[in-house]
């Protein structure tokens, strides 16, 4: 594959053509049944087949083109790179650019609602603040919460959405049954979720790696199935509706005389609630980030990372792995619970549909794509993946190309799955692959992600 010397790095057209033909044949074999034919129900509800030869041809040509591109452009480029003498890696101090970038990003999210209103008007901005701001921030927060478990402690959790569900249902049921306020129930939901994190974390302490992942998946599914089937408790598939919405420190966001708009002498608009919710989730997300950053400097955070690197060495050094794992589970679950309570308060309606395995997989994909352990990476991945598909929904030319029924959210999980595979192969450390070490000698230096082992037990 890779040329050893620059002389042999010349482009070999015959080989490239052969590879392209092979890729085309393989694509034909793989796509013939599922893309070449489509099963459609006719008027009598019988399945009939339709053929899609054009689409099949396009797919095969695309794959052949990709193969040609790889062997004619990318591989020679990589060969040239590999042939270059390797420079000794200078361990650079963390660049000031990154710090500056973080402040700029923080400033932007703080003024985002103002910008949205300024550019779209009061009514038009709801869509932006809600679909982009709040939606993305929920996933950023969930990503950061899962990052504690997966990225820092190295415990692959496939059932994270269960804690999100516990938080949601805690808020929904307690608020509806006892009429407690959002600000009281928010910490309570977090505590309940953390409790469940410990409860589910306890039996899996002995497990590692793949087995741990599968058991957490099982727990996540059990919780969802119980929520579906225990109708007396959770109202089953129908879900819970009419969940009380959060108030502005006791002032509801209604059109009444005691509502937010009336009290502050503003014209009534639902946008105020959206803005309020935006800042609540922003605060919660920043809290998650802040707590994580601080915890990494405490012994428990160091223990997490030590656990991720080598559990046996960790145990021989006298670190209590039981407590270390349980705190990671509990903290990750707690932030999931906060996000869940917020989600229930924002939606006003929840049902088990929102807590499927796909949701867990999506959060995990965000953490993996961003780079396990990197908070900036997780945020970027969430913005790109959640915001990206929302933007694609509005692009007219995509609709012109793919037909009027084009819905990008349909392709979201397809893209997520594909991206997970590609990122694992191409950049196993994720988009942001440098890590700032939490313990260092004399001065802090950025570490390439390839030096971080992440769970080679």
């Amino acid at each position, binding site marked *: 594959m890779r040329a050893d010397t620059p002389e042999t790095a010349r482009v070999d057209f015959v080989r490239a053509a052969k590879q392209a033909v092979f890729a085309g044949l*393989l694509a034909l*074999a*793989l796509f*013939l*049944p*599922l*893309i070449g*034919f*489509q*099963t*459609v129900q006719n008027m009598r*509800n019988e*399945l*009939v*087949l339709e053929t899609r030869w054009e689409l099949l041809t396009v797919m095969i040509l695309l794959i052949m083109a990709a193969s040609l591109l790889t062997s004619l452009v990318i591989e020679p480029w990589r060969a040239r790179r590999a042939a270059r003498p390797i420079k000794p890696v200078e361990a650079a101090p963390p660049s000031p650019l990154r710090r500056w970038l973080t402040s700029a990003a923080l400033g932007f999210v703080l003024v985002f609602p103002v910008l949205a209103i300024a550019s779209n008007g009061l009514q038009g901005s709801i869509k932006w603040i809600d679909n982009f701001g709040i939606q993305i921030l929920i996933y950023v927060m969930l990503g950061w919460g899962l990052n504690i478990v997966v990225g820092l402690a*190295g415990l*692959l959790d496939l059932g994270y959405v269960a804690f999100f569900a516990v938080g949601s249902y805690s808020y929904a049921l307690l608020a509806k049954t006892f009429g407690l306020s959002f600000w009281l129930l928010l910490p309570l939901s977090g505590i309940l979720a953390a409790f469940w994190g410990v409860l589910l974390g306890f*039996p*899996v302490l*002995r*497990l590692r*790696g*793949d*087995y741990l*992942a*599968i*058991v957490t*998946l*099982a*727990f996540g*599914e*059990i919780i969802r*199935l*119980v929520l*579906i*089937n225990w109708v007396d408790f959770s109202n089953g598939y129908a879900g819970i509706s009419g969940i009380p919405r959060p108030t502005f420190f006791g002032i509801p966001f209604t059109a009444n005389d005691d509502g937010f708009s009336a009290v502050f002498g503003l014209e009534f608009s639902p946008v105020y609630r959206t803005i309020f919710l935006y800042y609540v989730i922003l605060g919660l997300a920043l809290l998650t980030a802040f707590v994580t950053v601080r915890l990494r400097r405490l012994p428990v955070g160091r223990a997490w990372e030590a656990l991720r690197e080598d559990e*046996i060495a960790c145990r021989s050094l006298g670190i209590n792995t039981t407590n270390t794992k349980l705190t990671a589970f509990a903290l990750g679950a707690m932030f999931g619970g906060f996000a869940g309570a917020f989600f229930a308060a924002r939606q006003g309606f929840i049902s088990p549909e929102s807590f499927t*395995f*796909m949701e867990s*997989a999506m959060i*995990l*994909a965000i953490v*993996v794509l961003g780079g396990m352990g990197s908070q900036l990476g997780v945020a970027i991945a969430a913005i790109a993946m959640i915001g990206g598909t929302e933007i694609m929904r509005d692009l007219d030319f995509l609709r012109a190309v793919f037909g009027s029924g084009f819905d990008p959210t*349909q*392709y979201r*999980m*397809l893209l*997520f*799955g*594909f991206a*997970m*595979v590609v990122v*694992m*192969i191409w950049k*196993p450390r994720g988009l942001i692959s440098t890590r700032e070490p939490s313990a260092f000698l004399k001065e802090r230096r950025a570490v390439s992600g390839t030096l971080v*082992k*992440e*769970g*080679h*037990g």
Partner: protein
Amino acid sequence: MEIFVQQLINGLTLGSIYGLIAIGYTMVFGIIGMVNFAHGDVFMVSAFVALIAFLILTTWLGIGSVVLALLIVLVIGMIFTSFVSWAIERYAYRPLRGSFRLAPLISAIGMSIFLMNFVQVAQGPRNKPVPPMLQEVIVLMERDGYAVTLSYKQIIIWLVTAALLACFWFVVTKTALGRAQRACEQDRRMAALLGVDVDRTISITFIIGAALAAVAGTMYLMYYGVVSFSDGFVPGVKAFTAAVLGGIGSLPGAVIGGLLIGLIETMWSAYFSIDYKDVAAFSILAITLIFLPQGILGRPEVEKV
């Protein structure tokens, strides 16, 4: 009593399907130590291929004999699914050998999500029913109007499963290929030093697993008469449970585990609550992994430093 016998028959049928899928999990885990998370979705893809092949044969080519059509469908499904599984191993897992420990699993999860959504986008999200076939049943015993029946479908499933397991058993124990597989399972590096083509052996392992999953997929489609894009997940997890219960890495264990899971599921549905049958399956998975990780026939894993 009648109910029990009937559930026994149903459970063994379901268990055969799970056992066939479980072999794919257990072989792959045995040889490269990874949970092939996408295997359940490969099974689902095979059921769709079987559906499409069946429709081509019956509606376009007009093959009247259902048994003949099913045999052809089986062969087509096995060939195509082997291709898919080979490609997955070659392009999504092989580059990750030697990467950090969670990398292949994450790649497999990505592949599973990809396959599920690919089928959803390519074939639509609705359930795909096929016209009912092989409706005939044999009444075994009858009392108070409750008849214990054994359908032709169930007989076919048992026969095909038994025949394939026999072939498979022969391949693994008596042929050079099986020897190479067992060698790789014991020590991959040593096997490579002794001239075993490890990459090829692993590819063939994936192909055999996929071919057996394709058989299970065809049987599943024939038995239930309906398939949807999400049908890979739960049967996949249950088959994995079967593999773990039987002892992961052990081939007879996978079959025994599959039959056990099938029986537990049908008995649970009959005597306790059909709503909670998946909860039961997931609980068995968690309990087995926590308390009996080596399974019934497996060897306990020794932690090496």
